[in-house]
């Protein structure tokens, strides 16, 4: 039974991270926005949803929508002052924005209302799981997996439809520089803001699903390292390919969890093994960059 439980857990994680990698892929793969702070949307979705559901006692669905809304809004807002930055500076700015939000939640524990919810560095526990009472402890993970899969499919359909539309055509042209789309009358800044908002809100969706699954969140779960795990998924899976983004999430998640089992075979301490997972992901990125620059699934040519 242990194995089944683990597989369900792994699938839920894959689903949540696939949503994250799909949303980063929209921003980086299709629009060329080197977002080094993607974890901020994950973090905002988790916190906002937790506050709505736990503190304000609202239903899960409102927490989910609220988390998506605030994360999307944040994406929209951070793309205003950064609109004129070049790619590398933009990457630094987004990295900083993500850290600002994380440190905010680390220090401002009043945002969760104080009282029974500790917040701050202690994190917030006891986040309710949706429709928990209808299932046994045994069957609930399967139900949650279903919720995650429904969200993943919806995310895939929405992002895939967008990238194949005339909207997708414009963002692909932005990827290779502003000059051409500008000369063709496209408001490049606005398109970028929209992409940040959409990508941000789906990042928020993933955060919300994550918070309500684990039942506990704390600021140190949203370190910049998370962003790079999502980047690894996009790079390995294939940038500008939505199926690739999902495949990348699956593979990286397998690598990420593989060291769990190594302890049975290799005489290394568990703590060291945990650190080795980042080494494994690092190697994965290097191998992908060297031998398959376009990732496992290449960008699909749009034919008419």
């Amino acid at each position, binding site marked *: 039974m242990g194995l089944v439980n683990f597989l369900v857990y792994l699938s839920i994680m894959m689903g949540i991270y696939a949503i994250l990698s799909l949303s980063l892929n929209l921003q980086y793969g299709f629009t060329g926005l080197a977002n080094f702070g993607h974890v901020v949307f994950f973090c905002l979705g988790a916190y906002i949803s937790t506050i709505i559901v736990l503190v304000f006692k609202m239903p899960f669905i409102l927490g989910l929508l609220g988390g998506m809304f605030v994360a999307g809004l944040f994406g929209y807002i951070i793309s205003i002052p950064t609109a004129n930055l070049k790619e590398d500076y933009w990457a630094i700015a987004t990295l900083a924005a993500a850290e600002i939000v994380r440190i905010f939640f680390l220090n401002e524990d009043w945002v969760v209302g104080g009282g029974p919810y500790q917040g701050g560095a202690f994190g917030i526990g006891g986040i309710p799981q949706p429709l928990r009472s209808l299932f046994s402890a045994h069957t609930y993970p399967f139900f949650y997996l279903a919720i995650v899969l429904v969200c993943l499919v919806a995310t895939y359909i929405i992002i895939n*439809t967008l990238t194949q539309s*005339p*909207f997708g055509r414009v963002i692909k042209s932005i990827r290779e520089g502003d000059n*051409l789309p500008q000369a063709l009358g496209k408001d490049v800044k606005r398109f970028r803001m929209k992409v940040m908002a959409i990508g941000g809100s789906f990042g928020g969706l993933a955060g919300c699903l994550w918070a309500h699954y684990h039942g506990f969140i704390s600021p140190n779960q949203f370190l910049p390292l998370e962003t790079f795990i999502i980047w690894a998924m996009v790079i390995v899976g294939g940038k500008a390919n939505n199926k690739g983004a999902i495949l990348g999430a699956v593979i990286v998640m397998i690598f990420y969890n593989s060291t769990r089992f190594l302890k049975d075979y290799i005489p290394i301490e568990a703590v060291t093994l945990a650190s080795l997972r980042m080494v494994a992901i690092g190697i994965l990125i290097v191998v992908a960059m060297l031998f398959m620059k376009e990732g496992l699934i290449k960008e699909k040519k*749009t034919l008419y």
Partner: protein
Amino acid sequence: MLKVENVHKSFGGILALNGVTFSVEPNSITGLIGPNGSGKSTLFNIISGFYNKDRGEIYFKGKKIEGIEPYRIAMLGVGRTFQISEVPEKMTVLENLLLAPKSQIGEGIFNVFLHPLKIKRENEKLLKDAYEILELVQLYHLRNEYAGNLSGGQKKLLSLGRILMSDPILLLLDEPTAGVNPTLIRDLIIAMKNLRAEKGQTILLVEHNMKVISEICDRVIVLDFGKKIAEGTPEEIQKNEKVLEAYLSGSSKWELLHEDS
């Protein structure tokens, strides 16, 4: 149609444009020539809003265009191509053309989900236009090729086709025939003439090929060191001493320019 008045622009110590004034009549084809570094491309970049001018005014259809972003100028109906072709490598030739038309319904996020049928119809109409233009620039056989795989000359043709798709009132063409083979240049000359005749478009082009200039331009403006040194019909320009001097340091004649191109 277009009025450029006393435009100045300097980059550090280099005075790229030093008080340039001229106007472009509606439905005309005007050539902009001058030696390398004379300020032609800078002028294009200023008209299309990519550079800010230091001084001077630019009027388009009687309205001053000042301090507005390039995409707004494009929306007013000024279409431009670039000297070094701007071609998104990972988009097919056809996608490049479909990208061009302004304000498409399907560019709105919500429209993508709310009006899929309208978008489909719009796309079909655009495809028809695109095929026509592809025939014109002779890239039809390459329509599903990535634009990045095209040759330099083909990229020029694609840029021209793409700007035609966007249906501008005024076309600013930066060396449209550079790297294009002579027979195709002939077709392009005919195409540009047709455009003017059928669609009433106005064209301002930078060109080094004097044959093209003499054949299609009503008027020619000559720049040298950021200043307009001559303006007139191609015939007048050919006889202008100042122009010959600027181009060839006075050592030769117009015919040599012909040979050169």
